[in-house]
Each structure stands twice: as structure tokens, then as C-alpha cells.
């Protein structure tokens, strides 16, 4: 790049360009540039403006209000930038291109998801600055409440996917510290009379034996993983679990889960999702109630097949997240089980309902109407279970309100 000590001679710099002016291809970079920015600009104008992004599960920014106040405050400009980005032409293509470009640059995990062998998309390890200790302390405080202290309590945590499936991880990856967290949790809990169901060995050996315990494109455990956890939970309490043979295993394809939609690795193959359906359960013995706020609805199945139409099919189990869910099964042997849970419980709940007459699931993210200890006093459960994925427990900021 040349520059001019004295640009008062504004005209003489035209000479510099004259050499190449005859060759048209020399202008191709400019043509590409102008062609590209104008194409995208015009395409944007005609691109249909959607209200909702299904891969992001959020409402998109709508065209900002053109009031005087909005414009002078600068709000219009800011919202317009979001609007422009949210409706940018071929948006998902660009996101995918960026994901694969990072991968080619050797930066696997740029969006906090590792692209692993056999199409596994696995969340990076949780941050070292996490909520695990706060949440375990909240569980201990809850257990020591007068209303709760006489009810036996177990805590079960799903190990992180990357810890169990460590053979598929990319060569450069951060360490999954389950072997640090689990013993710390066990010791805190056992000092307070809470038993901890440690799934690490069970999962490691089942995985080595060839079971797929986690989805490849989602952070949850598979139905197989949930069943494995269920049998381990039963054996920790001396209960005989329902045999695998009582279930009719249904397979559904085309499941794209959360790690798929966060990462942008669109070329990854979808997962199959399995529904383990015990056909002997009918409306005669089995009921499910979902309570949100003051509204309660009744169902006679634990499976919501309408969700199989969506990309994210995980809500097929007990209709996904709800504040308070109650499953009753008159054919089961044991009494009442109260589960304080995150979404990992959705796929294990149908198994727990094989063993317990009444399974109550409370999700602290949405359950705000009363204290859980009040539910304990009213329902008098035989057993309490706190069930989370370790990754969720590390990020959860609602469990501390447990009382």
C-alpha cells in the first residue's frame, strides 16, 4: 500500500492504477464483494420473516416499533440490528458453516460442544466455578428439616456423558472431573445420613459392554441409560426391579437433541429414541396427573407420542418439564416415592412407576407454590430421591430454594 506524503496533489495517484486498468479480471475481487453484499441485502428483503426459531427455541426479534421515542433513545437501532441478524438469509447454513470452519481450524468445542467420534456431540465439562457444593448443601439442609428428617433419602446423579464415553472424545479436551466431584458429594451426604447412589462404575461397565447410555445429539441419558440407573437404584434399596422382558421396546428415528441444536454441526446423524412400553399397564391401573400452578390435568399414559413429531423428541416421556407430576400405579408393590428432579427423571419415571404405587416428581425450576417439606408432610412418602444430571446440578440455581 502506497501513501502520499503530500496529498495536495490529489490527482497524481490515479496514475498508479493505470497499469492494470485494462485487465477486467483484476476487478473480480470488487465484483465478488459488491455482488455478495447486494445479494444478501436483497435476499434479506424477500426472506420470509419467521416469528419463532425452532432450533433456538426462542421468539425472534420482530421489526422494531418506529416511534419517535424509540428512535431517539437508540432502541430502534439496537433492535433493528437484532432483527437483521435474526432474519438473516440462510441463517442456519451460516451457523453450520461457522461450526465446521472452527472444527477445520482445530478448534473443537468452540461452541462448548465437542464433535466426537461416532457422531457424538458432547457438552464440554462444567466450569470449575460451579454450583455443585451449594446445591448439595441445600439438599443436606432440606434433609435436616423436622418435616423431612425421618424419611429416608437417596441422591442419584447421572455422570457426565464425556466422563462415561471418554473413548469418543477428541484428543484435545478438558477433563471431566466426575471422579473429583462424586467422592466429595458422597462424603458430605453420608455424614448427614443421606445415601448416594453412585452410578459411575455401573455406567462405565455397561458402556464398555456396548450399551448406548447417552444420546449422541442430546445431553440426556437414553432409555437404556435410564433403565440401567433404575436397576442400580432398586438394588441400592433392596427392591427387585421390573425385568427388561416386560417391556415392549419401540424405536423412533429422527431425534435431534440439544447438543445438536447448540453446536451447529448439522451434518450429524439423528438419534433413535426408544419408548419402553409395558403393555400390561392400562387405564385400569395407571394414571398420571400434571399440575402447573392451580391447573391439574389427568392422563392414562406416561408417553406423549405427539412430541415425536418434533425435532426434539425427549418430551415423549411424561410430557417433558412440569412443576408437579404424579404417577399412580395400583399394580406396583412399594408405596410413595417423591423425586426432586431435573429432566433426566423424565425417562426414568416410567420405570420408577413400575415399582412404586405413587411417584411424585417435583421440578424446582417451576415449582413455586409451596415448600416441598409441606408436600412431604401431606403425602408421607416412603422414600425421597434427588435425581439430577451432574452437569445440570452444576448449573442449577433453583435447587437452593428447596425447603
Amino acid at each position, binding site marked *: 500500500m502506497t501513501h502520499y506524503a503530500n*496529498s495536495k496533489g490529489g490527482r497524481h495517484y490515479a496514475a498508479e492504477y493505470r497499469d492494470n486498468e485494462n485487465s477486467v479480471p483484476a476487478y473480480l475481487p470488487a465484483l465478488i464483494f459488491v455482488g455478495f453484499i447486494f445479494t444478501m441485502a436483497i435476499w434479506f428483503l424477500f426472506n420470509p420473516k419467521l416469528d419463532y426459531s425452532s432450533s433456538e427455541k426462542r421468539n425472534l426479534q420482530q421489526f422494531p416499533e418506529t416511534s419517535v421515542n424509540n428512535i431517539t433513545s437508540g432502541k430502534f437501532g439496537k433492535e433493528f440490528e437484532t432483527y437483521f441478524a435474526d432474519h438473516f438469509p440462510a441463517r442456519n447454513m451460516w451457523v453450520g458453516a461457522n461450526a465446521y470452519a472452527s472444527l477445520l481450524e482445530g478448534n473443537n468445542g468452540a461452541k462448548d460442544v465437542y464433535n466426537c467420534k461416532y457422531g457424538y456431540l458432547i457438552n464440554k465439562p462444567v466450569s470449575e466455578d460451579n454450583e455443585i457444593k451449594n446445591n448439595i448443601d441445600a439438599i443436606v439442609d432440606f434433609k435436616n428439616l423436622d418435616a423431612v428428617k425421618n424419611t429416608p433419602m437417596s441422591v442419584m446423579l447421572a455422570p457426565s456423558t464425556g466422563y462415561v464415553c471418554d473413548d469418543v472424545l477428541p484428543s484435545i479436551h478438558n477433563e471431566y472431573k466426575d471422579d473429583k466431584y462424586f467422592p466429595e458429594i458422597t462424603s458430605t451426604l453420608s455424614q448427614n445420613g443421606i445415601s448416594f447412589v453412585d452410578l459411575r462404575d455401573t455406567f462405565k461397565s455397561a458402556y464398555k459392554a456396548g450399551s448406548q447410555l447417552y444420546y449422541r445429539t442430546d445431553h440426556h441419558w437414553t432409555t437404556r441409560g435410564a433403565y440401567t440407573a433404575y436397576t442400580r437404584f432398586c438394588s441400592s434399596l433392596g427392591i427387585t426391579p421390573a425385568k427388561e422382558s416386560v417391556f415392549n421396546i419401540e424405536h423412533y428415528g429422527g431425534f435431534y437433541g440439544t447438543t445438536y441444536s447448540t453446536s451447529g454441526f448439522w451434518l450429524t446423524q439423528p438419534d433413535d429414541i426408544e419408548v419402553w412400553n409395558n403393555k400390561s399397564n392400562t387405564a385400569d391401573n395407571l394414571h398420571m396427573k400434571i399440575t402447573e400452578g392451580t391447573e391439574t390435568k389427568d392422563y392414562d399414559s406416561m408417553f406423549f407420542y405427539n412430541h415425536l413429531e418434533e425435532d426434539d423428541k425427549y418430551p415423549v416421556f411424561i410430557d417433558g418439564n412440569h412443576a408437579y407430576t404424579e404417577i399412580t400405579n395400583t399394580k406396583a408393590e412399594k408405596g410413595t416415592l417423591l423425586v426432586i428432579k431435573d429432566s433426566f427423571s423424565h425417562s426414568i419415571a416410567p420405570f420408577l412407576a413400575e415399582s412404586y404405587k405413587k411417584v411424585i416428581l417435583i421440578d424446582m425450576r417451576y415449582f413455586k407454590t409451596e415448600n416441598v417439606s409441606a408436600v412431604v408432610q401431606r403425602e408421607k412418602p416412603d422414600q425421597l430421591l434427588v435425581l439430577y444430571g451432574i452437569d445440570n446440578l452444576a448449573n442449577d440455581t433453583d435447587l437452593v430454594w428447596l425447603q
Partner: protein
Amino acid sequence: MVFSSLVFLFAYLPITLLIYYIVPRKGRNLFLFFINLVFYGWGEPMLVFLMLFNVLFNYIGGWLVDKYRQDAKKKKLFLVLTCILDIGILAVFKYTGMITDTLNMLPFLNIPNLHISLPIGISFYTFQTMSYVIDVYRDDAPVSKSFINFGTYLALFPQLIAGPIVRYRDVADQMINRRETLAQFTKGVKIFCIGLGKKVLIANQMGIITKALFETTGVEPHGILGTWFGIAAYTFQIYFDFSGYSDMACGLGNMLGFEFLKNFNYPYISKSITEFWRRWHISLSTWFKEYVYIPLGGNRKGVKRQIINLLIVWGLTGLWHGAAYNFIFWGLFYGLLLILEKFVLKKFLDKLPSVLQHVYTLFIVLIGWTLFYFTDVNQLFAALSDMFNFSKGIISDNTLNLFLSNLPVLIVAGIASTPLGACVYNRFKHVKFMWVAETLFVAAVLFLSTASLVDQSYNPFLYFRF
């Protein structure tokens, strides 16, 4: 608005270019004047009035200085008044918080915090306007006869918010006589894409590293090498961010028929701090030299006075960079080093093997950016101690992983900090099919930068109800 945003690249820029080239040449400055204000006021429209006020009083100031050019006293008076108003506005918007905080350290004072937000680009355009009146005063540039032309110069969107600081005398002629050519436009596209790539593909990535290492709490210590790695990433980030922005400015200027002076000249290959400051943010160093150092007497009034002048210039350079004391220290740190080099170290440094000269310079530059980065004194001392302390390990596992997964970008950044690419390009630019490589480069940068910018807006809200 910033250049590295979708709305600039795919809405503002196409509209601006389209209308600019449709409008007859006579109307182009008027159109630019208007579109500059849209650019400037995009985020905070009320600032347009501040800008218009600035244009107006400097225009009048220049006119008065020119009008009384025969009357030395009045001429000087109007120059001083205009400069005081310029500096006054800058001081009010930029330094009020710092001044009240300092005064509040006195036990009997309790001035409320006024929370004045900093108008974008004010540090840059204030210096530009001052160059105008001073140049007119010194007869280095003709007075601008047209208000529109002067306003267009001052608010010219390519260099408005992050430089380069274009002196009026360098573009005075171009404001009136410029002939946009396709060749110049093409050159502008290439330079713009170099800048875009520097900013979006390198600086942003380096920013992620810096953030991961210095802005997350509760993580284990990074180790001594880990901390140096973080500072090195910041060293790359600030260079590619700033020089990328300057490149984009020069490129956009070319697209509109302007030529701006080069603002960066591979600063990290310098062999001394003196050289570094000749290569880093050249338009700012030039400005301080022309309008502060030389008027103060420069080196013409003896060594003692020269040292004082240098310290004044570097204290002000530091203060210009930000309203906090660490920036003044940073400026004085460089001022002292430059004095030391000038009077003591130079003879010694020249005898060193050039490798050691580079090591010396980069070491100082990295320490300099450490002073620059940490505005909090406690964090600064913590970082400096981590940089010279083996007791916290060599490099933590996570930091090593961060390093390895960014290694290709770091290598590209390292090479792009040297003139190697430009040398290869200059060697081959007359080869017949060079346009193929150039076109591929432009296409690749555009594609990857767009992907990266779109990705920044992709925010899955997955923890709502999955």
C-alpha cells in the same frame, strides 16, 4: 454502528455505495454528510447534535482564524478559544468521572457521580477538528469554504469512530477534487477484506481466549506460561482489532475515492520501543508530535526540556487512551522507556544480535499491554506476579487445551503480524493469474466472517423447556 456487523455490511454499506454512485459528483459530499450522521447516530441518535455542534463551531473557528490572518493577536485568540472548546467537550464527556472520583478522595468532598456516557469516536474526531484549526492557523491547509465539505471531513464514517486520525491537510484537496476509479475501488475492497478478516477471524478469537483466561472467576491458576499466553493473546487481539479497523477504514475510504495514510506498519517486528511507536497507531503519534511535542519546543531547547516534553506527550498519550490512571502509567511507562532508549540504551541495544533486540521489544510490549489491559490495580498486580512466579505451575491443563485448540489461529496471527504475507504478495502481484488468488481471498474472508457474525446472533434458549 461498527463495520464488523451484519447491519453495516449488508444494509448500510450497500445502500451507501448505491446512492453514492448514483448521485452526481457535486452532490456526493452532501450525501456523505447525511449518511455519516446516520452512521454516527445509529446507536445514540442524540449524539448527532453534539457532532453538528462540533462541526459548526470548528467551522466558524477556522473561518475566524482565516479572516484575521493578518492580525496575529486575534488569530491566536480564536485558535485558542476553539481548541479550549474542543478539549473542554472532550474533557466533560470523557474525564468527568475520573476527575470527580479523584476529587472525592478528599475527605470533605462528595461529588455525585454524573454517569456521563462516552460518545463514540469523540477522542478521534476531537483531534481531527483540532488539526483543522491549527493547520489553518499555521497556513498548512486552506480554510474550508464549504460547511458541508468540512462536516463531511469531520464525520467521515470510515474513520469516524476508531481512526485513523486524518489530518485536515492530508485530505483537504480530496474533499473537493477526487476521482473515484474502479481500480481504487478494487484496492479498497481488498484492504477492507484484510481488515475484516483481522477483526472477525483473528481478533475476536483472541478475545475469546483473553476472556476465558482473565474474566472468569473461580478457576485454578493458569500457571506462569498460561498467564503469558493470555497476555500474548491480548497482544494479538489489540493489534488485529485496531489495525483491522484501520484497514477497513482505509478500504472504505478507497471505495469512496479517498486515500488515507497508513496507521500501522507491523509494529510487532520492531527492534526497539522507539521503532515500535513509529509503527503503532502512526496517525496518533504523528498528531502528538505535530501539535504537542514540536510546539512545546521538541528537542530544540536542551536535553532537560526535551525530557519534560516527552513526559508531557506520553502522559497525554496515555490519558487519551482511557480515563483511568492505569492508562497514564502506561503512557509514562513508554515515555520513560523512550527517554531511556534515546539517551542511554541506544548504543548498547544497537550492538545486540537482532534476535535479542526483538525479544527485548516484545517483552516490553507485552508488559505494556498488561498495564493497559488491567484497569483494576489489584488484578494488575496479581497478573504481574503470576507472570514471574513458578509456584503456580507451568500451565494448567485447561489453559494448555485452550492453547492447543487455538494453535492454528495463533500461528496465522503470528505470521500476519509480520510483513511476510505482503512480501510474498508484492513478489507475485504482477503474475498473470494473481486475480484468482485475490478473488479467492476476498471470497473466503467474506464467507467466513459472515458465518462468524451470524453465529454470534445464534443464541439457543435451550434451558427453557426442553
